[in-house]
């Protein structure tokens, strides 16, 4: 009722939509959430969501005025806190009849929250790769090697992000550095199966979320978005493979 300016509501909905896509929600979830928010704002929404941009038409239920807007989605960066909080607050918006201001404030709060400190991410992701080395049958020396190699790879990603590299080039360099560090272990025969450390040190780069979301989109009949995500994931895997191939050519390894 208290929606002074429909233009503001439209911008807000578009921002929420882009935020969710960028944080790694699948397409169905984005559509559902947007419909809930639109309901709360007494609007009817119809959206065409692609990987890079969103086209949305909103109809004011009272006056039947329509608004159509297009926006670009910024670079993808998985952030489940944002997905979770926006989903939860979309339900609250319906249940408690939130107005524009309340939704706007909540979204601002969600957007400005910091993620975990970088040092923590560094430690846990490296530990995850050490875990992978264990799963593929490496011993504890291989796990240490995978841990160190992943540290190198993650720092490379951070550096590449700082200089705004193309994501595929970034992945290529990260895979190259990580596998080069693990490759030293192969040369000096560190541990029982040093080639396992070489193989698992790059697994943190595997675009698992993109691949899972792609099949999720297929199941929900968002075939086009699913294809885009799949090709995206495939190109990432290709860059990782190229990074490892470069290491193997440079260090003259032929173990895999």
């Amino acid at each position, binding site marked *: 009722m208290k929606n002074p300016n429909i233009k503001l509501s439209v911008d807000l909905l578009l921002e929420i939509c882009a935020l969710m896509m960028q944080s*790694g*929600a*699948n397409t169905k*979830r984005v559509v*559902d959430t947007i419909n809930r928010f639109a309901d709360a704002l007494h609007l009817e929404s119809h959206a065409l969501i692609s990987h890079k941009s969103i086209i949305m038409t909103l109809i004011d239920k009272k006056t039947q005025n329509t608004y159509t807007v297009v926006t670009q989605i910024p670079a993808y960066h*998985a*952030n*489940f*806190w*944002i*997905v*979770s*909080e926006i*989903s*939860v607050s979309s*339900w609250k918006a319906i249940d408690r009849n939130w107005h524009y201001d309340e939704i706007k404030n909540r979204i601002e709060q969600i957007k400005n929250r910091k*993620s*975990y400190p970088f040092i*923590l*991410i560094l430690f*846990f*992701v*490296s*530990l*995850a*790769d*050490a*875990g*992978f080395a*264990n*799963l*593929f049958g490496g011993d504890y020396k291989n796990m240490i090697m995978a841990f160190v190699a992943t540290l190198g790879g993650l720092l490379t990603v951070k550096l590449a992000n700082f200089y705004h590299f193309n994501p595929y080039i970034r992945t290529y360099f990260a895979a190259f550095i990580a596998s080069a560090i693990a490759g030293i272990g192969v040369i000096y025969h560190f541990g029982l199966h040093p080639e396992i450390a070489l*193989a*698992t040190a*790059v*697994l*943190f780069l*595997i675009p*698992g*979320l993109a*691949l*899972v979301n792609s*099949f*999720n989109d*297929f*199941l929900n009949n968002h075939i086009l978005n699913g294809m885009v995500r799949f090709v995206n994931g495939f190109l990432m*895997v*290709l860059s*990782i*493979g*190229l990074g*490892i*191939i470069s290491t193997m050519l440079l260090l003259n390894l032929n173990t*895999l």
Partner: protein
Amino acid sequence: MDIIYTTILENAFWSGVAALGFGILFNIPKRVIPTVFILGFMAGLIKFYCLQNHCSIVTATFFASLLVGIVSIPFAKSVRKPIVVFSIPAIIPMIPGYFAYKTILGIRNFTFINTIDTDQQNMLNHIFSNGFMTIFILFAITVGVSAPMLLLGRDMTKKLPD
């Protein structure tokens, strides 16, 4: 016999750690951190138990992610968070990254290294078996994890914060 079960437990523990690591990378809410570890641990337990009993890796992965999908529902009710927030990090350790890049390495060998016909036929086998393995495991994961929600339908899941 005991050694086998210790190995399974150790592997399951490390899949829990891997799930947790990816959860931190994806910036999951603090409250679901234990949940993610437990789910990753259970998935690892089921997967390696099945593999031990001569299941194919696709079937093992399917059962493990089905379990994650089922157990997620009561968890989602208790922590009031959407299911994806902890089900996706828990299944990430099962993503066939290893197969995916073995496919790429096979392509490399096919193009750059082996030029003898019979070797190239072997390489083709290698590329196709690993490539299809990747796709089928991915499919098993997604179907397994979303099947409980799809089967229960809208009425049962309406109370969940989707």
